[in-house]
């Protein structure tokens, strides 16, 4: 894969990201009943719904790298914005469950993908040879 190809993928991923975020925010603003600086619950509901749809789309098209990347990063932005704005309003059991789910995924990923590499055979052989 050439460097130009990777650059094109990143570029289109960025374009999809920007349009996905713009679509979610413009829709949420349009449906917002409060308007201005105070947003209604419908605003946050639209943002969370959009993020769920984007995650599903991103996972579904994971073989098409730029599309998946754009949707997943835009869902990141929407979820973090909604969480950051209304984090104190979430009840404690729900926060506990949310953090537990994130922790479980992190543990599974670290356990399966980030184990320490075993020493290479050549290195262990040279160690054996140098031993008295």
């Amino acid at each position, binding site marked *: *894969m050439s460097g130009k190809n*990777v650059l094109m993928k990143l570029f289109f991923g960025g374009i999809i990201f920007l349009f996905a975020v713009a679509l979610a925010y413009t829709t949420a603003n349009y449906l917002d009943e409060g308007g201005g600086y105070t947003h209604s619950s419908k605003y946050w509901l639209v943002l969370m719904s959009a993020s769920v749809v984007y995650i599903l789309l*991103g996972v579904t098209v*994971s073989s098409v*790298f730029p599309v*998946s*990347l754009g949707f*997943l*990063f835009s*869902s*990141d932005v929407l*979820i*973090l914005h909604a*969480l*950051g704005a209304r*984090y*104190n309003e979430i009840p*404690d*059991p729900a*926060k*506990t469950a*949310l*953090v*537990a789910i*994130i*922790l479980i*995924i*992190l*543990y599974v*990923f*670290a*356990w399966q993908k*980030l*184990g*320490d590499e*075993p020493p290479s055979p050549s290195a262990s052989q040279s160690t054996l040879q140098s031993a008295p």
Partner: protein
Amino acid sequence: MAVMEILAFVLISPFLILALGLTGIALWTWSGVFTSAPVLSLFILFIVFIVIWGRVRETGRTMTPPQQLVLVRRAAIIISIAILLPTFARYAVQSLHSSLPGVIFALIFGFWLILWGLMMRDRRTLMYGNIVGGALTVMYAYSWLWELGEFPRIIAAAFGLAAAVGIAVFKLKDKLIS
């Protein structure tokens, strides 16, 4: 191969960014426990990132770009686990209305994490995350126990003593015998 590694990293990175973002939000609200200034939590995050960045730069000179990406990924996971573990304990304690059994659960959970981290041999990412996260959880549980009165303080001191003796015997057994 290197490009594929980078692509794999980019695909997993949305979740890591989400986890780090949640960590930042939790740290922001967490700051109310120890101090009223959220600036302190941002300062701690800033220091942690500076240390990790220095480490990546230092070891990165002899590493290929995919290896550097793995190092960054490990650092992101260690930070997330280390901060989300005490956050989880905090919310669990608050869900149990900050009762004494809830705080004792957090204390046992913290010591268990430290022990689990000490026992790990070939997974350093989880080892560091568990030890740091467990230590922060234990500190949080102790700060709660101290607030609850005289009897919980006795429990705190006794539990700490038992755990310290247990860990020392477990980790230093070979050295004591030899």
